[in-house]
């Protein structure tokens, strides 16, 4: 058995680990765990993730071979922060029982309300909640009394940092100056912001760029064509006042961040600067586990614990059996249930707080048959894994990868793409821990596998670099910078 300790709670980690080891031995002696199973078992304590997350106290993950036949439990994850004193053994036995039940087709769990069947994380209903959040952001903000940015670590977006914006505008001006010197400055200079947020960043950037352009006696500013792209029309409307002074240069586009090329294919090879902040971490993802030389695809199922279902029913004056129906209506966009909009949003917030994910591992016997996101294929992944740790779990970052590869063709030959986000920069960094998905306000948050993005882009002829975001002490974001390789 392998026990992995993370470093979230140094003070209590030692005693928690001792409790876990003692409990596992007792379960082994009592026959709840077989000897062979024990030898292969991996237990991880305190998965690194956001405080608001989808995880149960103990998660026991069983494997399935490529034919769908169940294998014994392989992984156990324990969140010691949630363990009530003296309850570890019971929680573990319950987790084992649930894993066994899952392996028996037709067995419905009694302690939880599933919101879907097992499937890839990227298809999970949790992304419907995420979509709802962005589409009904105003309702959520009205109910909570705070703006989205206030939920971010630091209380505001790193994308709004004034000095970072000033430096970016200066760098861009220099780039334009170099192109002009070579007689290669286009007549129209296109910039694209994917995920506009409040529009603050673009507004500040344009203020600064116009100022530099005037000070230095150039005429680049009037050539700018600013494309503000966002998934939600409401967000685009909210961003408008921030760029009001430059609105003649701006176009507001409803754009799928996962496929900018679909909307903007007429600008292929034309866009000089593409920027986004904290967009990739909010795109659908899926996960892969490498264990004992084999690859497993992580399937998840969203559920609400039955205790929470009962609580929700009591709080909103309905029967527990109708909660599923109310959740379905909510995800259709009905945030006005239970008598009023305010009440409906309260229900939404409580449900989101209660939603959790259980998981199972399905072996990938034949990698080429795996439905890879665009840009990645079996050969590339195999090459990457040659240098990777032998036992680890990683993000495929499907949504981020698709967004990335469907943005790169838009870049002007001398253009660049700048993405500020929470990146895992090397596959080897997963040795240090897997950063699980979290809830940020009403949205979903995932670390992004920057190593995969880098590999895919480099193979397609781009150079990719990561730089720490140096403008805010303690920021976990870094900046991915991509240009065409000379």
């Amino acid at each position, binding site marked *: 058995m392998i026990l992995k300790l993370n470093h979230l709670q140094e003070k209590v980690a030692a005693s928690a680990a001792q409790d876990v080891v003692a409990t596992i031995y007792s379960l082994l002696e009592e026959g709840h765990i077989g000897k062979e199973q024990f030898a292969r078992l991996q237990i991880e304590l305190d998965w690194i993730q956001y405080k608001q997350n989808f995880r149960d106290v103990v998660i026991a993950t069983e494997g399935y071979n490529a034919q769908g036949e169940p294998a014994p439990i392989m992984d156990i994850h324990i969140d010691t922060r949630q363990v009530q004193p003296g309850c570890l053994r019971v929680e573990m036995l319950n987790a084992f029982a649930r894993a066994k039940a899952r392996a028996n087709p037709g067995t419905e769990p009694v302690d939880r309300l599933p919101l879907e069947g097992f499937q890839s994380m990227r298809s999970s209903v949790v992304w419907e909640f995420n979509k709802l959040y962005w589409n009904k952001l105003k309702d959520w903000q009205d109910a909570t009394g705070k703006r989205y940015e206030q939920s971010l670590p630091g209380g505001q977006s790193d994308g709004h940092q004034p000095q970072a914006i000033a430096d970016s505008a200066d760098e861009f001006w220099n780039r334009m100056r170099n192109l002009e010197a070579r007689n*290669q400055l286009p007549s129209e200079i296109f910039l694209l912001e994917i995920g506009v947020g409040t529009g603050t960043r673009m507004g500040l950037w344009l203020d600064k760029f116009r100022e530099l352009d005037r000070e230095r006696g150039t005429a680049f500013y009037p050539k700018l064509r600013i494309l503000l792209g966002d998934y939600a029309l409401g967000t685009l409307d909210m961003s408008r006042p921030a760029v009001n002074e430059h609105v003649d240069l701006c176009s507001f586009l409803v754009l799928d961040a996962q496929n900018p090329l679909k909307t903007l294919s007429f600008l292929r*090879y034309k866009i000089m600067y593409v920027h986004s902040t904290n967009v990739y971490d909010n795109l659908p993802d899926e996960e892969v586990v490498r264990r004992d030389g084999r690859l497993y695809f992580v399937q998840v199922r969203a559920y609400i614990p039955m205790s929470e279902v009962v609580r929700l029913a009591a709080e909103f004056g309905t029967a527990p059996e109708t909660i599923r129906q109310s959740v379905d209506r909510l995800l259709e966009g009905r945030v006005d249930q239970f008598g009023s909009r305010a009440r409906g949003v309260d229900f939404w917030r409580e449900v989101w707080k209660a939603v959790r994910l259980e998981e199972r591992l399905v072996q990938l016997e034949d990698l080429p048959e795996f439905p890879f996101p665009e840009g990645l294929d079996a050969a590339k992944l195999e090459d990457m894994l040659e240098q990777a740790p032998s036992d680890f779990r990683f993000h495929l970052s499907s949504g981020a990868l698709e967004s990335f590869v469907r943005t790169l*063709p838009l870049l002007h*030959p001398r253009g660049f793409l700048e993405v500020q986000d929470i990146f895992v920069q090397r596959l080897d960094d997963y040795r240090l821990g897997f950063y699980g998905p979290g809830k940020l306000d009403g949205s979903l948050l995932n670390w992004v596998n920057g190593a995969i993005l880098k590999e895919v882009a480099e193979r*397609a*002829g*781009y150079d990719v670099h990561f730089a720490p975001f140096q403008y805010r002490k303690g920021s976990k974001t870094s900046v991915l910078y991509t240009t065409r*390789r000379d």
Partner: protein
Amino acid sequence: MMNLPILPTAIVGSYAMPGWLERLKTDYFSRRISRHDLDEIYDAATKAAIKDQEIAGLDIITDGELRRDNNVDYFLERFPGVQIDRSSKKFYYDFYDSIVRGKLPMASLGLVSDFRLLRDFTQRETKFNITGPHCLAKRIRNQHYPSEEALAMDLARVMNLELKALAKAGARLLQIDEPYYSGFPEDINWAVRSLNALVDGVDAKIAVHICYGNRYGKPSWEGSYRYLFPAILDAKVHQLTLEFARRGGEDLDLFTEFKPSFELGVGVIDVKSHEVETPEMVAEHIRRTLEVVPPEKIYVLTDCGCVHLPRDLAFAKMQAMVQGTQIVRKEIGGRAATVIDRPVRA
């Protein structure tokens, strides 16, 4: 003398690089297959590329350049005096770091055997491509010559011998690829001088291909061909091959403005797009070209090499090019075939 129909068709040079060939090359570098096996694989892949072009109906056939990682290393590896850092590249299509520390010695580059394979496996007219001295000089770290121009002129001196050997072996159409002109328009005067040194005394039709780059199937620069003029008018070549399908035909008017004596290899197929052109789209490109260049001076080509296209797409695009050309041939009088004498160099 070349026996060609009016509006002869060809690809610019490279044919679709199969993914398996890229992997086999990696296997070779990892010593999983021998050089002998790799050479046999190259030969087989080249023969298949020749056959594909013939079946698609092209009039002029290339070897598909499937032996070439890219249009630079294939040549620089053969130059005595150019030192290559073989640990410097990570991916198949990337460039090695290369350096020149002394005067380049005269030596054969051994290109003739590659040409012979092409010549022996097709009955049709052939074209063989050589990367030009400007492009090569731009990729080499120069620690000996006083200037890039001086390096390019010496590269041209060595390569001139090779071009003459190719002509002697039967190459009747040689194409010089100069993809970096568009990135360094300020070099154009000395670039043309080095081009002329390269082709001096070579007994073959000479085309020069100037594009906006095709690394990894993407353009390296944007702009207008206007920078070429008037310097390019001094080039001692018979044909310019330029890309127009992706960029549009605006620059065709330069041929009206400057009235160059060159033939024009007109790019009618966008190799950076996975959309297959229709024959009518191809025909429209050719009709537009006919407004500024007479038909006997037009060659119908892809914009650039097909190396980054999937094979099925490359094949479909070649077929569309042939069918579109046939439409225009009928429109201009049904002259299915004509014999074009090798032009006398200006």
